[in-house]
């Protein structure tokens, strides 16, 4: 990594796109390593979805029809890919700020948006690992059978789900300190998963929860996932629009928080 200083442009504004792309690639790799080397992040983010999926779909006989088996895979895929983005930003950014890293990075010549993009891409790679692990369990033990295109589409939905998750994480990370972020992001992560019906079918939930569910981003991601898997036929326009709105809103909410003075609180 000692070549970094050489390849980084003196000024982000004058950087050629080629240089920026290289910088992005290196920064992404760095972010990915950062995520993987942090066991507090990588172990639960990978093991929770795979473990819970194995429990619900393989150990317990919940998946008694092809549709039910595929639905379980979709639900835990969304659960699994929602974590990396949410935590990479929500907890990662908050601790970056607490430790002074954020200020250092902001002072670096690397443009802040590229830095953010790199972190998102790093989370996407991690999401892909989660997807691969889940698919492996689903295909071997879970009895899931999907059309070849559907497998690919579901993986794509899983990777792209990192975008709204990262935006929401950004909003948390921009405003919370590291300790609070760890707790609150966890609550938001598990809470939204349950409230979106990822763990238990919404039909089994009280009607109050059924009416809250559409306000949860994972609910719409799961809908996209079911469409991708070919279990549900509908237009993806509505969930996509909803998720775009959430993303934009979350980024807008995060902006003032990112600009506030940093340091240990």
């Amino acid at each position, binding site marked *: 990594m000692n070549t970094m200083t050489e390849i980084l442009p003196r000024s982000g504004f004058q950087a050629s796109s080629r240089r920026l792309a290289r910088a992005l*690639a290196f920064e992404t*790799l760095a972010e990915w390593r950062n995520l993987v080397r942090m066991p507090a992040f990588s172990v639960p983010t990978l093991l929770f979805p795979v473990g819970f999926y194995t429990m619900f779909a393989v150990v317990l*006989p919940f998946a*008694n029809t*092809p549709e039910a088996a595929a639905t379980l895979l979709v639900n835990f895929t969304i659960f699994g890919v929602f974590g990396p983005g949410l935590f990479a930003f929500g907890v990662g950014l908050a601790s970056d700020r607490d430790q002074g890293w954020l200020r250092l990075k902001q002072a670096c010549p690397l443009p802040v948006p590229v830095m953010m993009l790199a972190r998102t891409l790093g989370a996407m790679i991690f999401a*892909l690992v989660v997807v*691969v692990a889940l*698919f*492996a369990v689903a*295909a071997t033990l879970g009895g*899931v*059978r*999907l*059309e*070849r295109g559907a*497998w*690919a589409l579901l*993986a794509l939905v899983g990777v792209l789900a990192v975008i709204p998750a990262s935006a929401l994480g950004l909003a948390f990370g921009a405003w919370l300190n590291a300790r609070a972020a760890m707790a609150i992001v966890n609550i938001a992560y598990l809470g939204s998963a349950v409230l979106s019906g990822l763990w238990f079918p919404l039909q089994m939930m009280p*009607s109050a929860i059924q009416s809250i569910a559409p306000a949860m981003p994972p609910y719409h991601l799961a809908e996209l996932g079911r469409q991708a898997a070919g279990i549900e036929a509908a237009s993806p326009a509505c969930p996509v629009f909803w998720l775009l709105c959430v993303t934009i809103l979350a980024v807008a909410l995060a902006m003032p928080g990112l600009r506030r003075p940093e340091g240990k609180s």
Partner: protein
Amino acid sequence: MKPMITVAAILVALALGWLLLPVPEVNSPAGAHADDAVTAPPASDFTLRAERMFTGSKWLIPGLVEVRDGQISRVGSDFEPAADLPLLDLGDRTLLPGLIDAHVHAFGTALVDALNFGVTTVLDQANDSALIETLRQAAGAQLFASGPPATAPGGHGTQYGYTPPPVTGPADAADFARTIEEAGSDWMKIIIERGMGNWRMPSLDRDTVAALVTAAEQVGLKPVAHVSELETAHWAIAAGAHGLVHIFADQPADDALLALMVADHRFIVPTLVVMESVAGMVGTDIENDDRIGPWLSAEQRGSLAQRWPGPRNPVLRQRVLENVRAMHAAGIPILAGSDAPNPGTAHGLSLHRELALLIEAGLSTSEALAAATALPARHFGLDDRGLLEPGRRADLLVIDGDPREDISATLDIHAIWQAGQPVARVQADTVDSAPVPAHGRLSDFRPEAAGAEFGLGWEPTDDQMAGGNSVVEMQSGGDENLAWVRLRGEIRSGFGWPWAGAMFSPGSTPMTPVDLSGFSTLHFKARGEPAELRVMVFSPALGAMPATQTVSTRSEWQSFELKLSGFAGADPAAISGLVFVAGPGLGEFAFDLAEVRLE
């Protein structure tokens, strides 16, 4: 370049992994079908010629109809039949659109039974969403459905083993409408039933009915109403319900109601055949009519044989006929519906009786036939059927004779097509004549044995066939003294009366009744964690609902002895199934069964 190689290697691994992912198996029947198509011409393309034809709106004499790809492509009296299509000359017969029954509740074999009597489409007016989903894929008449009805908590419609989404007041209307719309309902059934005489029950009130009608329109479902009184008919029509699905019997229809229904183009499905049965005057004679008897299923016989409580009531019968006569005279569209399988009615068959009753109430034969074809299609938005005209489904019914001379000619069924495909009528299942062994042993659970000493034998049974989620596994086991079968599974919510366990079929085919009147008691041994074990007997005399006796099991073997006469209503001379199940309490269960025999 090393990072690029790493990335490329990862991408290749991902692609290979993707290619290894399992895909659904292709159904072999689809493949077989494709092969057939090469050798045989599609059965759905042909021209029919009949002495007379009713299109749903008018008579054509003679009548010609051309069918291509399951659809009607030409209709007329004198067109030149296409040279490339087979021409079937039906001679002195009558060609009709496939019949539509505008009021049924589909359970069990309903759809097959209906189709067997020329009813190619049924409109289910209140049923469980899960069961409807299952039945939509099932063979037989095509089903359209309201799904669960809007009714008061504990009101009429809540006694059938599933719980409709709750409607406690006007505030629940929008939620109810959205729920059933999302569950796939084709229209909304609103039940306003306060009971009669001493028989009172909770009912939706007027404001709630109005809110439901509005909510139904907002989600694009047509609201229709179950009423049994003139006053509640007024509520429904004033609120804007598109139709009534029963004729009321408490009072004569008044001019205000008739005027409002005419002005708003409202319809009625009077269901005279069930009203006639409520009046204790069932008019369907099955014993002396060989156009009926041989074609009846056990379930049809069962529901026909049942009776409503109460004495003969000719006044009631006369009043419903007069009310239909008044509505018809006012110009209100009358639709034919049977309300099968209520007591005294049967799927399919009872629609033919309804035609006769509509004619008795003043409709012409053509109007009665339109009531069972074009009108239900029009008023329930089924634009693809109900009329013989180009572009509609080739749902066709061919009968011997001329219904204008005698409406019961519709029972002389010569042929049925559904979407251009010929329908083979099913002969009724009669009592199996195979002798029942005198020893009466029903079980032989040694691992190497087939499990039964006669009949079709033992098989696991659960409520998934009714749309439920319960599961069961059957395993044989035993030691030197006793061979048993172990039933293990879980009763899960999903169907109103969940069950799972084992079934013994005494006949050589499923649900074929067998004469067991030579025996008086059922003996068996059972063990299981302290639990209720339900023993049920299916008999055509009971319709789809079995008679039940319950025993309590312990973890040690116990012998049980049940009198066959204790299965109330079952006819020992015609028993179609013996069932040992857990449920309806939810949860896991396991019980063992051995030495099942009759004495």
